């Protein structure tokens, strides 16, 4: 059957059901007491370090999580790299359990219960997955490979990243906000995104806080009065497009009223080859991305 896993991940999160106030009160109380009990029972992994359980967890991971997080948990087009010791939404066993069991509100991460991820995982299976994730975590911080302070100078200076990318509230709006990217993406992913941005664009660079997939495709339109605009797609459907032009001006069009509409999956971001960005500087910028997000912002 497997009808709709992808859509669960991509589309709207379930809306809260409206209930009578009294009923809601009773339910809230019931949830609070059940939640309290559950937290107590589920704050430590009963299988920590068990290699056999990690293997079972790997199979569970492949079936339920790899669709977004990749076969080796190193991140895919949508899900973050989980081999990083620092996780944006919490590192403790209890936090991991909660995030898998209940999903992460406001992100594409669904709850592992019925109607959430695939066919639903039991508590035991969730602990198996956590055991597996722990077994593939890299302990050392990847940020140590470069000079983050120099990377910051480059980001807002010579390489011009900050013209289009926001970091913790500072920078441009045309490209993805990179505040949490360092915490969720592997170094390989970040390197490839700099060296060959169009390749990444092919699969989409979903932002974790969007419930639809924004892919930053390049769009060029000519309006009915002959004005030509180029920019990135914020969202679109068969009949309309919402875009940001290269001056960060927001536009919304009905496609049928445009003189022309051309969309490509070539990124507007320049490719930073080894000439434009030598290896050392690349490492410095990545170190900045990693350090900034590991501190939870505030650079």
């Amino acid at each position, binding site marked *: *059957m*497997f009808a*709709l896993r992808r859509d669960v991940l991509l589309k709207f999160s379930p809306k809260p059901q409206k209930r009578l106030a009294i009923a809601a009160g009773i339910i809230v109380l019931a949830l609070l007491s059940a939640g309290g009990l559950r937290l107590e029972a589920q704050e430590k992994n009963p299988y920590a370090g068990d290699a056999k359980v990690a293997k079972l967890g790997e199979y569970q991971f492949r079936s339920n999580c790899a669709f977004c997080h990749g076969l080796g948990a190193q991140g895919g087009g949508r899900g973050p790299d989980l081999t990083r010791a620092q996780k944006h939404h919490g590192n403790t066993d209890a936090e991991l359990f909660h995030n898998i069991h209940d999903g992460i509100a406001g992100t594409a991460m669904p709850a592992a219960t019925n109607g959430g991820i695939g066919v639903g995982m039991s508590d035991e299976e969730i602990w198996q997955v956590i055991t597996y994730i722990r077994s593939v975590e890299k302990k050392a911080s990847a940020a140590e490979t470069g000079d983050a302070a120099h990377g910051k100078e480059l980001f807002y200076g010579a390489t011009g990243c900050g013209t289009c990318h926001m970091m913790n509230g500072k920078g441009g709006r045309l490209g993805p906000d990179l505040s949490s990217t360092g915490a969720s993406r592997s170094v390989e992913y970040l390197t490839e995104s700099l060296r060959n941005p169009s390749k990444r664009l092919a699969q989409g660079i979903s932002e974790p806080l969007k419930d639809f997939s924004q892919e930053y495709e390049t769009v060029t339109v000519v309006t009915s009065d002959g004005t030509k605009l180029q920019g990135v797609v914020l969202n679109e459907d068969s009949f309309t497009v919402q875009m940001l032009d290269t001056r960060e001006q927001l536009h919304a069009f009905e496609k049928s009223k445009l003189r022309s509409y051309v969309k490509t999956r070539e990124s507007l971001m320049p490719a930073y080859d080894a000439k434009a960005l030598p290896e050392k500087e690349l490492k410095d910028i990545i170190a900045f991305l990693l350090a900034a997000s590991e501190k939870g912002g505030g650079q």
Partner: protein
Amino acid sequence: MKTRSMSAGSKSRFLAALVMTVLGTAKALCVVAFAAATLSLSPPRASAQVSAERLLNSSKEPQNWLMYSGDYAGHRFSALNQINVANVATLVPKWAYQTMAGGKFEATPLVVDGILYGTGQDDRVYALDARSGRPIWQYQQTLPADIRPCCGRVNRGLAIFGDKVFVATLDAHVVALDSKTGNVVWDATAAEHAKGYSFTLAPLVIKNLVLVGVSGGEYGIRGFIEAYDAATGARKWRFYTIPGPGEPGHDSWEGDSWKIGGSPAWITGTYDPATNTTFWTTGNPSPSNRGEGRAGDNLYSNSLLALDPATGKLKWHFQFTQHDEHDYDATQVPVMIDDGERKWIAQANRNGFFYVVDRTNGKLISATSYAKVSWSTSKDANGRPVPDKAGSPTPEGNRVCPGALGATNWMSPTYDPQTKLFYVTAREQCDIFATAPQPYEAGHAYYGSAYFPNDETQPFWGALRALDPATGKLKWEWKHSSPAWAGVLSTAGGLVFTGDAEGNFIALEAASGKVLWHFQCGASVFASPMSFAIDGKQYVAVAAGSALFAFGLP
């Protein structure tokens, strides 16, 4: 014991009774008004009772939508033509009904004599005034915490017969409700929900029997189709979709794999009264994406079954995908098409082929790909596509088309007898299939695999495709921005209606595929549209997000 959460009070019963009385009085008037319209209609009916005869002759009352696909043939075609190519551009929303439930809203409602009967997510059931969308009664199945719906807490609709509506629920019950009050008349337990059995489909009533097929192909169930006495809820027959020891086809399973071999039947069948045969389709063998341990064709998974509706006895079968390893459930409505002497079943299968089968004997007439296909590159002596070994999932991953969600899925196709075209929502998406061995444990996920979006630079897409059943050829297509999950309705107004994942509900010219109208519903359309009329006015209805929308002319 099931409870009704929203209409248990005496006040609401009184209200319901009042509304029914008002509607009953108004009905005669509106049918007269209706008959005066340009549509050809049968005389007004004195009773709201839905007889077996009315179900057989559903085409004579196009103002009503009496079963899931609109008729026994599975056409999802409305003979109403008030909304047509000339005026559809002016279509406006008339009302919306919010189920207030989360998740995917996949249901098609029924309309009988001015009352709309529908289901929503979480096994809600409701009756509405079809003019206004105002509820008359509501029912909520109380679902236990340990139900195992693989793919959302969904339900696709009801069947109606006599003075009852029938719903099949996620906890594997079949429940009959009084169509005037929503009160439970009977409640039959079909199977153990904790072991992975559930229902998501709209039942099918044939004569005095309520037919259902089970879901649970992700949990290693043993699938079945069964029938209940509409009056009492007594089970009359059960046909296991996996033959037991000593039965023909049993040897198509390795060892004991047949006991947990899946083969659910989670989409509503069709019925040919001329030969008293009901046609059902089945889903994947379990585990769905790993063939190791279940060597053989795995009958009757991914098959078309011709059954005697009175006894459940198998007349013949046709298997679309043998020994499936890609989750290619054949659970798409088996559409009956008559062309002169030719009696066909047409199905656009999840595996990417459009099949035409002789429904008198189960012989394949043609199989033509209607979407990108790589799992099969050859056909057997009868013209049936056979799987390539090279397409099997591997530990590292193997790219195969269509992907795990299929070239289409459960959303209904439509057959338009005016254009003689078959319209289907096609999905162009390939996936990487990687194995992940799982031991069987009752009630736990059992599918043995992972799948991922492939790394191609071309993003996934979809299209509404118009196919000619006589040739299998594509007549036209209209591209969707992304793979869609909406079914298709065709109407005598020369239109087809469908939806998309971006929330648009769309009307196209049936002959050409030209878009004539669209409306943004605000959430993805995960349902198949239908049409009805009341007071001489035609409506088109579809579910999107948590709302059921009804559209009409201004």
